[in-house]
């Protein structure tokens, strides 16, 4: 935000012009990531892994993750020595959420894989055959959540360079 006391740099776009475009970009990227991951999950559970649609959903999730990292200057995933104190506090906060999600995902995967092994012992190996895909769809949100969360929380923040 530019103080009324200040004169913006020559050629700089006013903050009010930058903010809606950033909000739009963040909303689009986060929405694409959520939809991509949902499609990936549905296709994996339906046994359509390794199809073109599954591959496309994976690419969408990967691209939106990359987009979130770019929009947040990779603050959530950079090393602690590469961020300043404010970024470190932001990074810590979103990583805590990612850590909790990773724990939940690990627990859910444990239960699902236990069921899958028991079903396979009973002559129904379908779920066990899908285990690698389930691990992938569990890994992706746990790994990408910090960047997505930080992008969403900072969607209304301008670049503060004025």
């Amino acid at each position, binding site marked *: 935000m530019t103080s009324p*006391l200040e*004169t913006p740099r020559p050629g700089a776009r006013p903050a009010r012009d930058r903010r809606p475009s950033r909000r739009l970009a963040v909303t689009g990227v986060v929405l694409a990531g959520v939809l991509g991951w949902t499609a990936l999950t549905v296709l994996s559970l339906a046994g359509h892994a390794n199809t073109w649609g599954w591959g496309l959903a994976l690419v969408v999730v990967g691209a939106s993750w990359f987009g979130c990292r770019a929009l947040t*200057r990779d603050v959530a995933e950079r090393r602690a020595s590469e961020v300043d*104190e*404010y*970024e470190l506090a932001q990074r810590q*906060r979103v990583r805590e959420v990612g850590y909790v999600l990773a724990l939940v995902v690990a627990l859910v995967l444990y239960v699902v894989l236990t069921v899958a092994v028991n079903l396979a012992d009973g002559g129904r190996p379908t779920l066990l055959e899908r285990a690698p895909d389930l691990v992938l769809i569990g890994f992706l949100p746990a790994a990408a959540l910090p960047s997505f969360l930080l992008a969403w929380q900072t969607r*209304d923040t301008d670049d*503060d360079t*004025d």
Partner: protein
Amino acid sequence: MARSTRRDDDTRRIHNRVNVVRAEVGMSRAQLAELVGVNPQTIGALERGDHYPSLQLAMSICEVFDLPVEAVFSRTPFQSIAASYRRDPEVPARGDQS
């Protein structure tokens, strides 16, 4: 707006007038950020009151402007320049610094 990284509540709030002293010397956030070794977003968060600086950062900022810490940071709100000249003290001062 980004979520605040402050840990305390308003009763222990730290007010600052970094934006005023920065505007006084015609320095941009990016320039100040470069001088104190942080990102411009951190200066923005500081000025908005979304982040309380470490002692290291607070003193670095004061060194840039050659001011004592108490001139830039305070537990009590800074009075705006306009409020100090206002004749009617009952008129609310909208421009008081955070």
